[in-house]
């Protein structure tokens, strides 16, 4: 078993050793249910697809993922276990990836538990299951990107509330960066090229294109590189903050 996997196993176990896991999963399922059936109107649309289910995921993740990620590193630093972990024979990269994968896997478990929605549309109609599979993949990538942002913010501060709030704001900005609310701030003075770059960072734009069932390699690369970038930033943040 590689050392990354040992860290992964311990970390994932830690979620289920405390009520965090159950509270998170129950709230996540409740909220997805509310959004899908009441706000999204799954039944009223009379269409056998999961668009109303996935559509709200960016907004749910923006709120719920930081609640998971906030403890990733700030808790280790506060409890002093960071020192223990970093003096065991493992590298920082192994620790960062192991802990991140555990957190991501945990949200994947929560996401997988939404399968009754999928059963429902299959029972009621004849949906295109490849589009639904693409939706789940997109949702997972989106959760991974939010989690990587949260990981970095958690590495920057000992205070979990601060980590939560800043992760929330950054995820919110990424969600909205394709909308006028963010773009108008730049379009007045910045060249069009910069505005285009900012709008290309929108989670919603990339997520929407995956939701249509078109799994474009560029969208995968977008989320993948975003995750890599924030994890690299996590490593730098831990190194820089270790001595304080």
């Amino acid at each position: 078993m590689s050392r990354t996997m040992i860290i992964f196993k311990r970390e994932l176990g830690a979620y289920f050793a405390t009520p965090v896991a159950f509270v998170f999963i129950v709230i996540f399922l409740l909220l997805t249910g509310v959004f899908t059936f009441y706000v999204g109107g799954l039944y009223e649309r009379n269409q056998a697809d999961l668009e109303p289910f996935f559509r709200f995921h960016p907004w749910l993740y923006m709120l719920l993922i930081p609640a998971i990620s906030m403890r990733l590193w700030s808790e280790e630093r506060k409890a002093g276990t960071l020192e223990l972990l970093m003096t065991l024979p493992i590298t920082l990269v192994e620790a960062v990836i192991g802990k991140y994968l555990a957190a991501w896997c945990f949200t994947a478990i929560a996401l997988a538990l939404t399968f009754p929605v999928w059963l429902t549309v299959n029972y009621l109609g004849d949906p295109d299951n490849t589009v639904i599979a693409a939706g789940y993949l997109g949702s997972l990538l989106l959760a991974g990107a939010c989690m990587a942002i949260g990981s970095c913010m958690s590495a920057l501060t000992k205070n979990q509330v601060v980590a939560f709030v800043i992760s929330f704001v950054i995820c919110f900005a990424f969600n909205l960066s394709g909308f006028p609310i963010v773009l108008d701030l730049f379009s007045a003075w910045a060249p069009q090229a910069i505005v285009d770059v900012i709008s290309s960072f929108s989670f919603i734009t990339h997520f929407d294109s995956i939701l249509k069932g078109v799994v474009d390699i560029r969208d995968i690369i977008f989320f993948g590189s975003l995750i890599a970038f924030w994890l690299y930033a996590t490593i730098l943040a831990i190194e820089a903050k270790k001595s304080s």
Partner: protein
Amino acid sequence: MENLIEVKGLHKHFGKLVAVDGIDLTVRRGEVLGFLGPNGAGKSTTMKMITGFLAPTAGSINVCGHDVLSDPIAAKSCIGYLPEGAPAYGEMTPKTFLDFVADIRGLTGQEKATAIGQAVERINLQGVMRQPIETLSKGFKRRVGLAQAILHDPEVLILDEPTDGLDPNQKHEVRSLIKNMAAHKAIVISTHILEEVNAVCSSAIIIAEGRILFSGTPTDLAAHSRYHNAVTLSIDSGISAKVEKTLAALQGVASIETTQSNSSLIQITVIPADKGSIVGMIHQCMRDNDWQIEELFVEPGRLDEVFRTITGGAQPAGKETRT
């Protein structure tokens, strides 16, 4: 004996603050080094650098022949470390926690089971193996940290305040444990309990403001005390005035301190000039005058006094409680 820890010219700066300012030390196999110093002297920072947690600003650290900076994994593999405060994952039980550390240390199968079994037995953790660590008492938490440190039977053991917060029985257990392991390992312990130095250490270092102020054996350390070779005797309070006067007049006696030990007894400490041996002379003098001595002993030196003198917190005089 081979050197298991070699530290040369170690410096650590935090911004403008100089935490460690040029420390050199070597620890051989079989040696227990006591690291003494006031709070904030740089003890923990030095240990954090030796164990590879913090990178030094300058200097080199070699553990078991591995350079901590260029080959951290190999160096960390042969170190067992108890960080200050014995941190552990609170939601885990000692069983799952030790299991995790054993996995990371690369122990598997029978080897792993034996290692955990031995550590648990040595530290006496059997009774709490299935309780979450956060629910354990301070003493047990510290023991879990110790078990984790000795799990892989490391050649180098670095313990930051291993007996802090333990009751006298637990302190005794931990000290016996350290002494039992000492022969095959290089051990560094930090402490501000001076009796611990005499109890377990074969050498001692005093640091303050990041520099080494003293290095030697505990006996050398005690010899720095002005109480070194001082003679303390208890006599009946009725004759104390006479005795004091006579002893003070003896040649080779620098000064005399007295304390009331109970209602009828007075304790007199006779401090020699130049730390010379005066016990024979005093005994002779007492016998010549036919004075009854209830108790008499030669002091090796008072570590707390040496500590205060060396680290600059010296009181203007020793105890002068005349009654």
